[in-house]
């Protein structure tokens, strides 16, 4: 089995071959699915825990605080301690709650984010599934989570939860458009919807650089709209703790609450990964034409490191938004989408189509 840090294709193919040789095709598939599932699950939990810690540290540093510093060195085990606490907490049954929906909602939220991870290419050949309509798939799956939020708000039998859920619904319906259009602009550039294909098309330069100003605008639009889609930052209306106490998850406790919590951070990760894949060249290193030495050094850094560094950057950006800006009001959020983001995305898409037609991009 050859393990290459720069190209995982042969590695994954070797594993596949190994399984196919030793097992019947059916069991080989089952084994592969299991491996992929376990790996992604472990990854999911790890990233979730790390992101919670990172968010707490980032916001603490921005606020002149130290952040968690009690459990372990620099408090790195704080989130694990929190997780254990959440696991041990009582699941409080709510009177007159719609029991089935109430229990189902956190799972829908978490499954939606779980599914989206499958399509993300972490490095060359390192992805669970490389759909030829990857962009479309991710886009479709990631907006499923809002169903969970709506169900949670509705079934909690709590008025604050219901308001939060309705806000979330209204937001997602509108922000889908901008997300879609800004992704579409790069699809126009790359000429493919396959996520790995889009990454490969950025071997000689990331789309955010290659695509002139329109691509940069598309990136900003995407970051803004996707922050809204993940119910974060200045757009966290669905939970708006100063207005609705905790919004849709007011009534949830214990592990069910942990699911919502984890899903929020994973959604952030997914959105950042998509932004990286589409705009920032995925696992591709930073390359500049003409700087041979620089390019070699950059190319020497493994793609996985590149990918996660970029994701960390985008996530940091989103955290920076959240801990700086005041929250928008529901009508302002809709105004922002329908009056600013959507027209801009439309104009931007047309511009990009022109750029592509005239061959102005690199």
């Amino acid at each position, binding site marked *: 089995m050859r393990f290459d840090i720069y190209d995982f294709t042969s590695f994954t193919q070797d594993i596949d071959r190994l399984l196919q040789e030793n097992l019947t095709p059916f069991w080989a598939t089952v084994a592969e699915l299991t491996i992929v599932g376990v790996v992604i699950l472990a990854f999911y939990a790890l990233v979730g825990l790390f992101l919670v810690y990172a968010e707490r540290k*980032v916001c603490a*540093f*921005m*606020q*002149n*605080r*130290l952040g968690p*510093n009690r459990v372990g060195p620099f408090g790195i085990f704080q989130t694990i301690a929190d997780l254990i606490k959440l696991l041990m907490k009582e699941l409080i049954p709510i009177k007159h709650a719609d029991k089935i929906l109430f229990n189902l909602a956190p799972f829908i939220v978490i499954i939606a984010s779980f599914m989206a991870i499958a399509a993300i290419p972490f490095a060359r050949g390192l992805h669970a599934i490389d759909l030829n309509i990857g962009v479309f798939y991710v886009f479709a799956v990631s907006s499923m989570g809002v169903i969970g939020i709506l169900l949670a708000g509705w079934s909690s039998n709590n008025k604050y939860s219901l308001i939060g859920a309705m806000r979330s619904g209204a937001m997602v319906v509108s922000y889908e458009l901008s997300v879609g259009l800004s992704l579409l602009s790069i699809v126009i550039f790359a000429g493919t919807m396959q996520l790995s294909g889009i990454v490969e098309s950025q071997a000689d330069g990331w789309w955010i650089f290659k695509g002139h100003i329109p691509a940069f605008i598309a990136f900003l639009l995407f970051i803004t709209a996707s922050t809204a889609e993940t119910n974060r930052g200045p757009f966290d209306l669905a939970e708006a703790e100063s207005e609705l106490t905790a919004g849709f998850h007011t009534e949830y406790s214990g592990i069910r609450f942990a699911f919502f919590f984890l899903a929020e951070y994973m959604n952030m990760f997914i959105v950042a990964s998509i932004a990286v894949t589409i705009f920032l060249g995925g696992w591709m290193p930073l390359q500049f034409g003409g700087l041979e030495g620089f390019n070699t050094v950059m190319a020497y850094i493994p793609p996985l490191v590149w990918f996660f560094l970029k994701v960390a950057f985008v996530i940091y950006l989103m955290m*920076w*938004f959240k*801990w*700086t*800006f005041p929250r928008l009001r529901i009508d302002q959020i809709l105004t922002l989408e329908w009056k*600013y983001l959507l027209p*801009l995305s439309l104009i931007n898409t047309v511009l990009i189509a022109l750029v592509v037609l005239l061959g102005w991009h690199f």
Partner: protein
Amino acid sequence: MNVIINYFKDIFQGVWSLIQGMRVTGYYFFHPRQIVTQQYPENRDKLVMFERFKGEVIMPHDENNQHRCTGCGICEINCPNGSIEILTETVINEEGKKEKRIDKHIYHLSMCTFCGLCVKTCPSDALAWGNEFEHAVYDRHKLTKVLNQPGSSLKKEPKSTAKEIKA
């Protein structure tokens, strides 16, 4: 045309104002020296409270286990919450005269509002503020304290010195 220009102007101005805010938080993010957190239990040894800090009412005793409280009861009258109780006893002193002196100066920390009137009004300056602030206990009754130490006695001093101290 103006409408369109204003539209884009709004966007740019808005984004610029957002960047201004991000500059502030970004500055602090990259300047961890500005962190103001005090790590409390760790810095306990170095932690110095201000000398006037009102932690609790204490009755200072000197090295001979003597205090200045005469048991006059002015602090008890001046306490708005009844957190001071003074129990006096009558004893016969060396000269054979009956003398009223303090038995117990009881201080209910749990009822104290730290208004400082007892310390302020004490005519013989027997009370003072202590700097202790870690008052958490598991039993409320532990917050009821007897301020005069067992076996302590009244410090006899010429009246002039008492006045000087007061001044």
